[in-house]
């Protein structure tokens, strides 16, 4: 009953209550608010470009005075804090290139985040987002976007999302995707696509259009077959990664997988496979039984008591 997620709205000065969850581990190196203030001051004084505010038990960025005056900084780490959202004045950090808010409690993003023209890395992993803001589109420089370990699904991605053509690495692991929108093909510069541990029952054939793809992680889903168009890609080289285990593959694919990546790719390029695929698609197959994945992410789910 009620949220098990506790929030301290207005922490008293110098008194920070530490909340303990079953999964948060003790860290003896967390930053005090004093040290946080010092970091900000130092950055301003010495013109430091990288600011590290990780593990500072920060609930609210308003309690980091002067942070948004550091308009010169290029990297900001706010990981392992307790932020629930980012204030819109984040745009004041106009030189920001790397923003790391991994492992917070963020449920919503301000759309102002798209105004960060120089933002290249955005790590929103391990938060509580169920949807991206509607205007999450035209981030002009975004290259690496980490949305792992959230509550996202295919409905969470606005259509403007696929106009971020500068994306070269997209991490969507441990979310709730059942299908991947076919617009994924628009991200033609994508080199890394990570869909580990979702609920995917199929891969769109547009994945075969991602000519620059080097890494494809689809392990831990509900995939039984692969689209033959995936054969257009070459993921067999030394720098390539193809992880597909933990899926209910049809037996031919499973056996090829056992032998290695190149065997799978050879197989799905073959005529026999194409024939089998067409037949499979024509027959109306029920999606296989899905075990509840709720048990997976305990820390992000609302516990029903």
């Amino acid at each position: 009953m009620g949220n098990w997620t506790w929030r301290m709205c207005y922490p008293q000065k110098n008194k920070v209550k530490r909340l303990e969850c079953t999964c948060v581990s003790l860290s003896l190196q967390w930053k005090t608010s004093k040290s946080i203030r010092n970091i900000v001051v130092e950055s301003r004084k010495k013109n430091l470009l990288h600011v590290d505010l990780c593990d500072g038990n920060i609930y609210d960025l308003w309690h980091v005075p002067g942070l948004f005056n550091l308009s010169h900084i290029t990297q900001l780490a706010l990981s392992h804090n307790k932020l629930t959202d980012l204030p819109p004045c984040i745009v004041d950090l106009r030189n920001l290139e790397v923003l790391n808010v991994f492992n917070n409690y963020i449920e919503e993003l301000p759309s102002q985040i798209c105004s960060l023209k120089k933002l290249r890395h955005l790590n929103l992993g391990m938060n509580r987002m169920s949807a991206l803001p509607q205007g999450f589109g035209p981030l002009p420089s975004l290259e690496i976007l980490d949305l792992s370990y959230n509550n996202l699904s295919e409905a969470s991605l606005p259509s403007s999302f696929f106009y971020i053509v500068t994306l070269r690495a997209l991490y969507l692991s441990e979310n709730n995707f059942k299908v991947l929108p076919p617009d994924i093909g628009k991200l033609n510069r994508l080199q890394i696509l990570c869909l580990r541990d979702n609920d995917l029952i199929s891969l769109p054939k547009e994945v075969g259009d991602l000519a620059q793809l080097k890494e494809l992680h689809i392990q831990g889903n509900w995939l039984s077959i692969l689209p033959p168009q995936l054969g257009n890609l070459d993921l067999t080289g030394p720098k390539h990664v193809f992880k597909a285990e933990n899926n209910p593959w049809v037996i031919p694919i499973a056996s090829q997988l056992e032998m290695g990546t190149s065997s799978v790719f050879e197989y799905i390029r073959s005529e026999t496979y194409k024939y089998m695929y067409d037949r499979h698609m024509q027959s109306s197959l029920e999606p296989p039984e899905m075990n509840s994945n709720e048990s997976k992410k305990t820390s992000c789910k609302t516990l029903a008591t």
Partner: protein
Amino acid sequence: MLHRKRERVSERERASCISIGSGKPHVVWSRLCRTSGHFLRGCKLSIWGISAMDVQHPRIPPMIPENGVAHVGVNDMSVVEGEEAEVPISKSQRRRSDIKVYKEFCDLYALFNMANALANATCERCKSGFAPAEKIVNSNGELYHEQCFVCAQCFQQFPEGLFYEFEGRKYCEHDFQMLFAPCCHQCGEFIIGRVIKAMNNSWHPDCFCCDICQAVLADVGFVKNAGRHLCRPCHNREKARGLGKYICQKCHAIIDEQPLIFKNDPYHPDHFSCTNCGKELTADARELKGELYCLPCHDKMGVPICGACRRPIEGRVVNAMGKQWHVEHFVCAKCEKPFLGHRHYERKGLAYCETHYNQLFGDVCYHCNRVIEGDVVSALNKAWCVNCFACSTCNTKLTLKNKFVEFDMKPVCKKCYEKFPLELKKRLKKLAETVGRK
């Protein structure tokens, strides 16, 4: 007798008359010895006066008649009088002296006639008579006053008595050349002596040369070719060039098939044989160090062939990528600059210079997306600049010596990993174990 001699002389004169165009000018000698009838060449002219001093050779002995008896002349004639008085005269001797007297009489008569003839003589030029003691010039039977016997052009006496006659007029040597001698087409000078007439012009023998190679044509003959006078070899060469064919430098005939080029000259291939095996060569024989070899022998000798131009390498050889190259042909595939001993970087059978190799294939940093210059941190199937390699969850800088874990093929420092939800860590551990078991 005199008459006969004169005839003989005139014959000789006719033979040596001037004719323009034969290339050999001749001279009419103005002097003839009145006594012997021979040409007086180079001798001083002695003028024949009415005193009947003969124009004659200076030292000619007195005329000896056929029977050997000495001539009784008016002057300078010795009479061997003493001999007749002292010696008793035989019958034959008497006969001889009769003949001698007769001859003397004839000569006197002739002389007398001569004197008469001279009294009526007129100068050929001015048609006036001669004064009694005046000097008379006799030229080929024509008589002239001394001042009438002059060049028709310059009105001077002929130097050394040498004159040239043309169309009834006599000229001294200089004026004759001025007026009539042909001019050489090449050098513009008078041609004296041998004249070459060709191509509607006159030439000195040495000036008439091949238009191409300047060889003297006078004795070898020439061929007309496009308005030029060429020697025969040049003409052949021109003809061959017009046909686009080579001339074999050995037999100088046109090469119909593909020529064999040896030391920059074309030849018929079958003139040569292979230095190695002695076989008759064909057009695809090869030259190596000044010797000719047939193609199989040449290839067997292992002469390296440049990978770029496919020609044999003589001189410095670059060995790279399993092939040989000319030093200047081993170039970067992108910028085409020769390596000249600098490092080259291979990719897919092509060689690149450092700049372009990095441009095209260089490791790109995962973090900053630029070609890594300097040291490369290689991990998790990706590359980072040394300064870019950092934890993906907290941005803390990492080195390969630091402890970090892989999470979705990203580096996560130990500190961050420990903050992961427990269930996640358990799952990851389990996964690692199953992979390890496999």
